Structure formats: C-alpha cells, structure tokens
C-alpha cells in the first residue's frame, strides 16, 4: 500500500472524494438553484454570484453542473460495467473454447476493432434511440470488443505459464483453470483497465449528450450542459467552459485512479522520468568531455604508442545510474593498435571490452560519459569535435562489424543501398560505380551473384551471409581499421569459421588493422597477434597471442585458458571455475559498482541496447 502515497495516488483519492461527494450531496445541496427558473437573472455572465453564469431560464449553471454529477457518474458506471462484464465474459469464453471457434470469435472481435469505436456507438444508438439508457447500452456494447481483446490476451498469456500447464496436466478442467488460475491472475490488470475505460466512457457519454444523442431535456448530464452552454458561448463563455472543465476533471480523476492502481500492480512507467533526471551529468556526453588530468594509466602500458594507428589512454566511461549519479564502467583503460595489427580483446560479459572499442571508434552511446587523456584515430583527435573532412575519413577508414548482423543491418533498406552509401557520400561515386564497388566487395566476402543480391533486403539473407555482407560493408571504404565486436557469437559453429576466414582474407587484402572482441580466448589467440584481457572495466593483462599459454600471468587469464578443453582433457573431471565471485577479486568499490550497474533503469539506453556485447 506504500505506493498509494505517490502524488498520483493522493490526487486520485482526493479527486474521487470530490466526485463522490458531488454525486451524493449534489442534488440535495444545489437542487433548488439548479431547477428554479429565475427570469430576472437569465443569461447572467459568470461572476461571484454565479460562478459559471446562468442559462436562458436564469438557472445557476454551476449548481446544475454539481447536480448533474450524479447522473453523469451513474451512467458512466453503468456503461463501464456493461463493457467490462461483456469483455470478461466473451474474452474468457474465447480463452476456453476449442481452437477453431476461438479463432472465429477472436477474428470477429478484431474485425469490430478495425471499425472506429464512435461508429459502433452511433450504430447502437440508432437501435435503442437517442435516450440516456440507449446511450448507456450503446457505449457499453461498443466497448466490449476492445475489452474482450484485452481479457483474451491476458488470459492467453497467463494460460501459457508453467503453473497453468501443470494444472492442466494434473487434470484440472477448463473451468477450474479459469477460475482458480487465470481469473485471479488477470484481476489486477483488468481493474486498471476498467478504471481507464471508465475515463473513456465518461468522455464518450458527455460527447453523446453533447451531440443530442444521449440524455434528453429536461434531464441533464455534463454533456447536455455543455451543449446548452455552447449556444451562448459569445455572451457567457463560462457556460460552456465550466461544464467542459468539469468533464475533463472527472476524466482525469479516472485516469489517475487507473495509474495509481497500475503503480500498485508494479506496472508503473516511472523509470523513464528517473532516467530523465539523471541527465545532468557533470560533464556532457561523448567527445565533449575531456579529462583535465592526463594521469598515468594504471594497468597496461600501451605498446608502440608512437606508431599506433589508433589509441586511447586512461579511458573512463560512465553511465547515469538513474538516480542523478554516474556509474563508471570502464576505469582508465589504455589501448593502442598498430597499422595492420590484429588485436584481440577478451573478457567476460560486462568487462567493458565493447565499451572500450566503441569509444575507440567514437561511437559511444549518447548517454555515455566518455573521458580520456588521449583518444585518436591516426591524426584525428576524437576528444574534440570532428573537423569537416575528419568525419569522411572516419566513415571510410574505420569499419565496424557487430555481433548480430540481423540487428546491425537496417531491415528497411536493401543491401545495395547500405553498401553503396559510403562510396556515394564520401568517395564521390555515382550510383553505377558505387554498385560495382559494392558487388566487388560482396564477391570478395564470398557471396555468389553479388550483383543480384544487392537488390535483396537483409531478411532475405541467411545469418552467415548477413555477416559476410556486414564485413563487405566495412570494406566498402578504404578501411585501415576494422572493429569486429563479437562477429561470430550469433552464428552457428560451422558458419563462425567461414566468417572468421572472410575477416582474415579481408585483412590480408587490405592490410587493415583489426580489433576483434570476443569472450572466447581460444578463438582470439588463434586469430590475433596480440591479446588484451579485460575484466571489470580494466585491462588485466596484454600478451603475445602465440605465447598465451606460457606467458599468462594473471589468475583470470589462467582461468580462461584452463577452461579450454583439449585432446588431453580428462572428461570425467568438471571444467575449472574461473575466479572466485566478483567481490573476492575486484576491489570492494568496484564490487559495489558492479552491483549498481544492475540498477540502471530500463529507460536508460546505455547499457541495455547491447546487453550481450560487453
């Protein structure tokens, strides 16, 4: 019940109290002023005496609004009840029906849903006539398809749960399942939906009465009062605005009730605003942030820094923690890549290897706060805004291959379009030249009929082909560095080998350097010249790939290597476990940060967009 004390909860309770007291006490308190004609006072403008003015018979409009609360709310309750009960009945019936009748029923409801709801209401109004009861039936019935859909979807999702299947297996009949398992589990979302649909119903009722199709004179509800008020909107605007505001207020109260209920059920959407609040990071995101102190990097010493093609020193990457602070995920990493060199970065998930590589490519997420002493590609300083020609050079000289080619290729654009745009934008080629180049690159990565395949969309390629196309795309410029972020993880084993082969050939042909990120130390040590081992956002060791088994010094690296089974492995013994738990290895403060990472809310883009790539 703690959540009821949220602002929405308090507002919902207060609003409900106001509406209820108006509905209960309204006719008794204001009944006289609302019904007694007073010709002297007719069409008086709004003022202290008459808050909303008076109508053409001199009746106080504010009093009439208060009196109308009872009828308006009763009709709303009636129509909502019809809609919800009908929806539950039809929806649950659909849920327990056998396959074909169920499909037919859902199909009919879907068909009705395709029609605007107002049209359904009008259709029903025709049948029962323009009366209060007719409107109540019409609005209630017209709401059934939507609620049916909701109930059916909820029930279908619950009945897919293991405990419901288990109940079926032990022989509980459809009605037993319905009442003992499904209904209790969908009751809460249903309640939320009922409150939300009450809000819509109230507005709909006001609308029908406003159109002269609902409550008829001499009776009146809020919509009828609005209808009467708009006639004299020039002489007394409050006569229309007053009832209008009342309708909006009542609708808002129902919405707030729905929100408060939803909050209680733990379905709130608060995290988005919480993420928004974290926006005020101490320094701006991305390259705008530059470390003031070029402190000596801890851990690894960059090799060959003088001749490096790309390098970062003392790279620190932090993300908003959703509560106004920052969580540092990469702690002072230094890394350099020489021209033509193949560097592997190995580490488990969350070790910061992808974050490091993305910062090296200047492609960090917008929410990331990136700081480093130096961060450059060739002679392009990535810590300062890019100059005019530098973007073009990065676009052509730096290629990227991601883990899952299905998500890293744009599904709405043809392969040809995606493989030609770098040539056309940056290399000044015309369409024909660019397509020729793209076809040549596709042929180079082993895709047959490349000319025809350019017209295909990514979904028409198989997984391995897509990754080949992605590598081909990285080659369309004149790459000097290719960053491959787990390029084979999403592929099956036989395809993995082919894709690595393609990458290797590309390296041979272009002489580009490669940064290969992986969690697989065997793969990396077989493919790379040099291996960088990362753990918990820091580099723990850098090794020559050929001598990795002999030279591994850090216990984490040794653990990774020990896990690799080979021909001599004793198959009866369990594989070794790497390391102790996080807290035993990492310094205490990092352990805390490790825990804090999990708190980054769903709305935050930084850590969620590539959950498995780090």
């Amino acid at each position, binding site marked *: 019940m703690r959540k009821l004390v949220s602002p929405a909860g308090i507002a919902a309770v207060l609003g409900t109290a106001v509406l209820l007291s108006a509905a209960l006490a309204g006719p008794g308190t204001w009944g006289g002023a609302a019904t007694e004609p007073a010709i002297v006072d007719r069409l008086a403008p709004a003022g202290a005496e008459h808050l909303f003015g008076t109508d053409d018979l001199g009746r106080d409009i504010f009093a009439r609004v208060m009196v109308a609360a009872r009828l308006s709310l009763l009709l709303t309750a009636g129509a909502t009840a019809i809609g919800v009960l009908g929806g539950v009945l039809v929806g649950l019936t659909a849920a327990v029906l056998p396959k074909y009748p169920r499909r037919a029923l859902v199909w009919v409801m879907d*068909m009705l*849903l*395709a*029609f*605007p*709801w*107002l*049209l359904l209401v*009008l*259709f029903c109004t*025709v049948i*029962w*006539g323009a009366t209060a009861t007719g409107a109540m039936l019409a609005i209630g019935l017209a709401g059934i398809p939507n609620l049916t*859909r*909701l109930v059916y*979807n909820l029930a*279908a999702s619950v009945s897919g749960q293991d405990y419901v299947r288990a109940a079926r297996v032990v022989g509980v009949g459809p009605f037993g399942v319905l009442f003992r398992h499904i209904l209790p589990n969908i009751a809460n979302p249903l309640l939320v939906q009922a409150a*939300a649909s009450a809000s*819509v119903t109230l*507005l*709909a009722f*006001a*609308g*029908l009465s*406003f*159109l002269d*199709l609902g409550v008829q004179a001499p009776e009146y509800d809020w919509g009828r009062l*609005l209808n009467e008020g*708009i006639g004299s*909107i020039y002489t007394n*605007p409050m006569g*229309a*605005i007053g009832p*209008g505001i009342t*309708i*909006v207020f009542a609708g808002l109260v129902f919405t707030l009730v729905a929100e408060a209920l939803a909050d209680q059920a733990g379905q709130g959407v608060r995290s988005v605003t919480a993420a*928004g609040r974290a*926006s*005020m*990071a101490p320094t701006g995101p991305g390259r705008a942030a530059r470390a003031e102190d070029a402190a000596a990097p801890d851990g690894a010493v960059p090799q060959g820094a003088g001749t490096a093609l790309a390098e970062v020193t003392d790279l620190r990457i932090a993300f908003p923690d959703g509560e106004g602070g920052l969580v540092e995920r990469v702690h002072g990493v230094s890394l350099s890549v020489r021209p033509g060199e193949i560097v592997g970065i190995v580490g488990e998930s969350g070790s910061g290897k992808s974050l490091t590589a*993305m910062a090296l*490519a200047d492609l960090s997420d*917008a929410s990331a706060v990136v700081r480093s002493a130096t961060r450059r590609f060739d002679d392009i300083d990535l810590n300062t805004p890019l100059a005019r020609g530098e*973007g073009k050079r990065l*676009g052509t000289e*730096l290629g*990227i291959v*991601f883990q899952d080619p299905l*998500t890293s*290729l*744009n*599904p*709405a*654009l*043809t392969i040809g*379009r995606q493989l030609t745009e770098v040539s056309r*934008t940056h290399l000044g080629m015309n369409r024909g030249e660019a397509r020729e180049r793209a076809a040549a690159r596709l042929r180079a990565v082993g895709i047959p009929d490349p000319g025809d395949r350019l017209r295909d969309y990514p979904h028409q390629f198989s997984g391995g082909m897509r990754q080949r196309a*992605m590598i081909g795309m990285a080659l369309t410029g004149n790459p000097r560095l290719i960053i491959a972020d787990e390029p084979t993880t999403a592929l099956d084993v036989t395809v993995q080998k082919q894709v690595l082969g393609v990458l290797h050939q590309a390296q041979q042909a272009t002489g580009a350097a490669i940064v290969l990120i992986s969690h697989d130390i065997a793969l990396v040590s077989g493919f790379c010249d040099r291996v960088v081992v990362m753990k918990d956002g820091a580099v723990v060791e850098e090794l020559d790939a050929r001598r990795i088994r002999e030279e591994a010094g850090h216990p984490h690296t040794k653990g990774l290597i020990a896990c690799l089974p080979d021909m001599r492995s004793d198959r009866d013994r369990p594989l070794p476990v790497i390391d102790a738990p996080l807290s035993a290895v990492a310094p205490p403060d990092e352990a805390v940060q490790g825990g804090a990472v999990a708190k980054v809310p769903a709305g935050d*883009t930084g850590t969620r*967009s590539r959950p498995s790539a780090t």
Partner: protein
Amino acid sequence: MATAPGPVRPAEPAPASARFTDRLSPRASFAIRRTGRLVASLLIVVVASFLVIHLVPGDPVRAALGPTAPVGLVENTRADLGLDEPVTRQFADYVAGLLQGDLGTSIQTRQDVAEVIAARFPTTLTLASLGFLVAIAGALPIGMGAALLARTARGRSANPVVSGGLGVLIAVPDFLLSVGLIAVFSVWLGLFSPAGWGDLRSSVLPVLGLSLGPMAYLARIVQVEMIKVLDSTYMTTARAKRLPQRIVLFRHALPNIVTATLTVGGLLLSGLTAGTVVIETVFAIPGMGNTLISAVQTKDYPMIQGVVLVFALMVLAVNLIVDLILITIDPRTSISEG
C-alpha cells in the same frame, strides 16, 4: 469523441503451423489475409447497414413518423420501404439497389438518400483528408524531435513539457477540444469563425479540432518507435558511416518508424474518419456527419442506413490504403497481424 478506447493492443501472432499462407512469400500471404478481411468486412458492413431498421425494437416506421401520424401514412411508408416483404427478399432488393447506387428515400424529407450523400460527401472527405494530413505532418516531426530531444542533456529538461502537452491533447476528447478552440480563437481572439466551412477563416478550427488529438497520439507512437530505432544497432552502423545527419534520420530511421507507426496508427486514422461526425456537429459544417446526427434524432432510418454504410466504406478504404502503404514500404512485412 475520445480518440481511442483504451490502449490498442496488437493482435497476438497466429501460430505458425496452421496457416496455408505460410508457404507463400510474406507479402503475398499478407495481401491474401488482408483481402480476405476486407471482403468479410464489406459483407458485415452491408449486412449491418441492412439490419439497422430491423433491429429497432417495435415498429420503426411508427417510431419515425411519431404517434400522431395517420395509420394510412404509416402503412404506405412501410410498403414504400418494402418492409412487408419477407426479410430475404428485402435483403436481395437492398443489395441489388446498392449495386445500382440506390440507397432509398428519406422517410422524413422524401429526398433521395444517394443524392443527399453525394452532395455532402465532398465536404466530409475534404475535412477528413485535411485532418489526416495535419495529423501526420505534425506527428512525425514532433515525435522524432521529442525522441531526439530526450537524448540530449538540455532536451531532457524540456521533455516533461512536451510529453505533458501531448498527454493533455490525447486525454481531451475532440468535442471538448473544439469548444476550447472556439472559446480561445473565436470568442477571445476573434481570429477564426466558430462555424461554417469553405474558406480559411472557418476551416482552420475544424481541421485542428479533428486532428490535434490523433496527432498527439501518433506523435507519442512515433516518439516511442524513434527511441527504439535510435537505440538499435543498425543506427550505430549508420553512425559509423559518418553520413550527414539528415541521411541518418530520413533514410535510416524514418522507414523503420513509418512501418510501426502506421500499423498502430492505422486504427487511429480510421477513427479520425468517424471523428468528422463530431466536428461537423460542433462547427455546423454541412457534411455527412451532420446529416447522420439529424437522421438519428429524427429516426430517418433509410438515411441512417445510407450514411452509416458510406462511413464504414470510408473506414475500410483508409484501412486498405494503410495496408497498401505498409506492403509497399515494409520489405519484411513483419506485420503478421494487427
């Protein structure tokens, strides 16, 4: 009235095994399913509009003409409407009439229903089309802009204002919004006229009243979709190519937004068609919606039948157009249902 009855839930994907259409290409299977649905919808619409007069409890002719009408008149009218015939015969006549463009004669005014509709349809069509255009033209930049804003530190502080404004526009039903527009722009500022149709002075408010609600709702969908798209890996791929910002946004992001937006927003746009009924009444515009409301009030059943049928056909036409756009722009047709 309210723009959308509660959240619109996308339909659950059908089980893959049981459909013969699965063996076809996604596009063909989508086209077949949607054509099937269109034909079925047409049937339902025709039957429903035929049934209007038969579902009315009691004697519809007596109800329409009032308790004081002479018996002879009631009998004659009933005979005119063919209500003395067996129902199957009536339905056959009704369908035959429809195919010849004959929608019957008004009980109240004795006018030819088809002629009345023909005279009023262009106004409603213009209003609805302008409403679509304004809704879409407003929703795309607002939604995309809001999503981009949310990613900058400065923009995030403006975000609650944007989403609050959109929330109000979504929550306030069109008839109230229209009353508010009249109060501000006609009564207070005197900029636009509160009723009528045809010139700029009278047309601005109806179009706004019709489109602002759907526009806000669409803008929110666009915003959510845009955030999803911006977070996707293929947008990082596009950024890696260092393309000009406008190419990244319009070529790489926009097509992916349009698909999802149209799938959900199609319902909204067809709802806008019916919204003209409300708007025409508020602004006293001589269109089909106005005709429908007065026909319902006077129980002029042939007129109701005709107008409801035309409105339903408009809705089906909008759905068809949305489907055609989807099938053209979405290569995957991942739109399995919905």
